[in-house]
């Protein structure tokens, strides 16, 4: 197991390395640069040179990369060009909670709602309830989150005044973004849950369970759900980092603080350390989530666990 995790970490490290090279090269090959920042009159070559020297941009590309890499290995992602008072790592640390809260809560909502609906629709497969839920799942999934955001903001905020139209202040400010973000995703979750449940329900061991006299509730909880959980978890866990990175639209609609906005900003500003730092951070988070998912998979599925042990 330990060896497995170590091997996976090597894989993640390699992934991150490749990604950093890709992002690094991409950011340096596009026209423009940070020193052209909103300046109507081009700066003098001396100014640009001074700037480049200050941020080490005068060195050959590979040297810059190696410097970045060396620092990154000590978790030093550099200082954003545009925010000299803070490091990229600290900025991520400061803004992550907001993205994580919105994305995480939305994912939680999506999963909770979706799983509940999915189970209900699988348990009553091919009934009107199933049809209604399937219809909901299909349609809700076709609505982009920002559209949902507009609709909710109008009704519940602008019109009824129950919630603020946006901004950051407290739990009340979270309600709309989380719903707007989570609801469309719940459709997909419900469909996948239903599929997993049905798959488990059609399996031989469920037939065995019925044959030995277990009642429906028991079959559903002890046999169907326990097995369906495995593919569900492996699919739903990556939703968390996925939704955290995608919260940029919701941040934009509701004017929330978060990493997404800063990523967009940094890209426009050619703020290399920020772009690279945020990208690498999310990639690390996503890769780790996959790893955790796989480990968890091994924990909840005894077949995998033992196979690992035996091997």
């Amino acid at each position, binding site marked *: 197991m330990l060896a497995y995790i170590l091997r996976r970490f090597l894989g993640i490290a390699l992934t991150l390395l490749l990604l950093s090279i890709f992002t690094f090269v991409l950011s340096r090959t596009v026209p423009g640069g940070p020193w052209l920042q909103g300046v109507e009159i081009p*700066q003098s070559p001396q*100014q640009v040179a001074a700037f480049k020297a200050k941020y080490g941009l005068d060195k050959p590309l590979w040297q810059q990369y190696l410097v970045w890499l060396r620092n990154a290995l000590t978790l030093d992602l550099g200082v954003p060009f*545009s925010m000299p008072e803070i490091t990229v790592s600290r900025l991520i640390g400061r803004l992550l909670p907001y993205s994580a809260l919105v994305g995480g809560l939305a994912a939680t909502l999506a999963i909770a709602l979706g799983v509940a609906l999915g189970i209900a629709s699988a348990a009553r497969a091919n009934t009107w309830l199933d049809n209604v839920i399937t219809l909901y799942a299909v349609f809700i999934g076709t609505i982009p989150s920002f559209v949902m955001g507009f609709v909710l903001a109008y009704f519940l905020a602008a019109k009824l005044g129950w919630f603020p139209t946006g901004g950051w202040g407290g739990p009340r400010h979270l309600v709309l973004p989380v719903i707007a973000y989570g609801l469309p995703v719940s459709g997909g979750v419900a469909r996948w849950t239903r599929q997993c449940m049905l798959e488990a329900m059609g399996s031989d061991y469920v037939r065995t369970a019925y044959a030995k006299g277990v009642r429906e509730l028991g079959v559903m909880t002890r046999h169907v759900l326990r097995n369906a959980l495995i593919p569900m978890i492996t699919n739903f866990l990556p939703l968390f980092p996925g939704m955290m990175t995608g919260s940029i639209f919701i941040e934009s*609609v509701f004017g929330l603080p978060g990493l997404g906005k800063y990523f967009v900003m940094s890209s426009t500003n050619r703020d290399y350390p920020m772009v690279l730092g945020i990208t690498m951070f999310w990639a690390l988070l996503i890769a780790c989530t996959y790893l955790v998912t796989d480990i968890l998979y091994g924990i909840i599925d005894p077949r995998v666990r033992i196979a690992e042990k035996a091997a």
Partner: protein
Amino acid sequence: MARKKVARRRFLQLTGMAAAGAVIGGCAQAATPQVVKETVEVVVTKEVEKVVTKEVEKVVEVTPAPPTGPTNALGVTLPADALPLEKQYVLEPIGEVGGGYGHIMESLYNRAFEHFGGTEPLTSLDINLQVYPVACESWQVSEDGLYWDFKLRKELVFSDGKPITAHDWVFTLRRAMSSGYDFGWFYFDIKNAVKVYNGELPPEELGIEAVDDYTLRIYTEKPTPYLPALGVWFAVAPKHAYEQYGENWALDPQKYISSGPFILTKFERGVGHKWELNPNYKGIRRPYIVEIREENLPKGLPAYIAGDIQRISIDANSPAGERALVNANPILRTESHPQPPTNTDYIGFNTLPGKFPPLDNPDVRLALCKAIDKETLVSEIFQGFAEPAWGILPKGFPNYIGEQLKELDPNVYDPEAARQLLAKAGYPDGKGFPVFEMWIRQPDASRMALCEAIQARWKENLGITVELRPSDFQSFTDTAFKQKNAPIYFVNYSLDYYDPATFLNIFRTGGRHPHEDPEWTAFYDEANAIMDPEKRFALLQEAEKRLVLSVAYYFVESPFGIMLWPCNLKGETVQPNKDGYQFYGGGGVGCMHAYEGMYWADPACRAGLR
């Protein structure tokens, strides 16, 4: 996206300028009697701070006669209809890096804020856009016009109690010009500024000097009649803050040293900032409001209607429909305030010899200009949110002569004449004319539509094909202005200060444009240096005419917007000025921009808005 640029534009738009040529005064002018009275009080008791407070308290006790509201930490008593102090705050969207400055003279990138709450500028503009002294009491220009003496206010102190002296000003400007401050060109009129900025001379050579502790002398390269107007961009920074805390002192509430009426009390990057009144402030900008909050805010009219944001601007680029929505709502209509145009869009041609023939042929360029029916296009596309531009100065700007320029040949739509001109140049019906790209800097929907309409006119009227190349700010600047590789470009310029020079300066040879005209530059420089305002303006008019006639540029339109703020925002500075324009909090940077002269009254007038 256009974040950087948009932010800056907004930042500058807030300096909203009114119509009709205001004369730049050579002497101080009091903004309102009330402010003067305050000033006097402070002057009298400047030695001991504690006395000030007591005196102020006394004033409150002694004169209860008119019904008054609460008194804030600066001792300013709010009008009777004001809401309690805890409601007297200004809510601003958090700076998206670009907007504003931690300290006005901070170096490249250190921008986090968007107002002059924490710094004292040399001069400012009142709501009538007249220059008045802020950190100085008065100024005096030398006989030859080559240097200016600014008499500084002796009572001013930093928030830590240290007096603000001319040495601080000298330090601030030297630092700004030698540390890569990205708006350094604001100060290029100062003697040796360009060379210091480019690192060719040491900062000490900058033409700025402390004659004594309270007299600041600024030398200029040549006579610069608009220097006081430029003074809105001169701010003072505490030398000891740099020495004590290093570069980033202005981004830390623990270290922040304010020279203005507000002081930073919270700074969480990306999350929120807060400014509160600086009780040690002794200057003349004395706001009613007690707090500036910068937060992540929602956007759009619904948020405005719901009261979650305090102001919103609507222009031709706003999401579709906002204007109609405002028109449909009587309360919103009362809350909307048109702003004067402050910028101009123009098309530039790369006339560098041999670079993009035949664009170096004035006849060809004239043909291109005459093929555009500007008036129709602008009114159709901008729907009242822009004035057609006949020269670089936007309508209403001092020395605006649009009516005269309109008659000039390049501004007259005449497709037939255009065709003939083109034929004369060797391209009958556009045959053989190269396919050029028109680079467009950060087009929004309406500008893009405009460019496409122009593209269509050229095709229809001249038979030539031009391809549109929308581009981001960086790539555009790099290609069009630095490499000078764009044959045709569509770009915008916004005012920096309140004088025609702000616009005309950019057309000087050696500036950003791929067009060289030393003759015009010489003429303009001479005209610009004339100290007699009337004579100078007359010659500048001539310069603008020549600029239009050079056909290196074709001026298209000056867009403007409408600012909405709640009807319960009251005070002197939100009143209409002499031209009928109203500015939020006095108009923005350079114009009393510490939100002075405004306060929140009872919101009853907004009832039923939802």
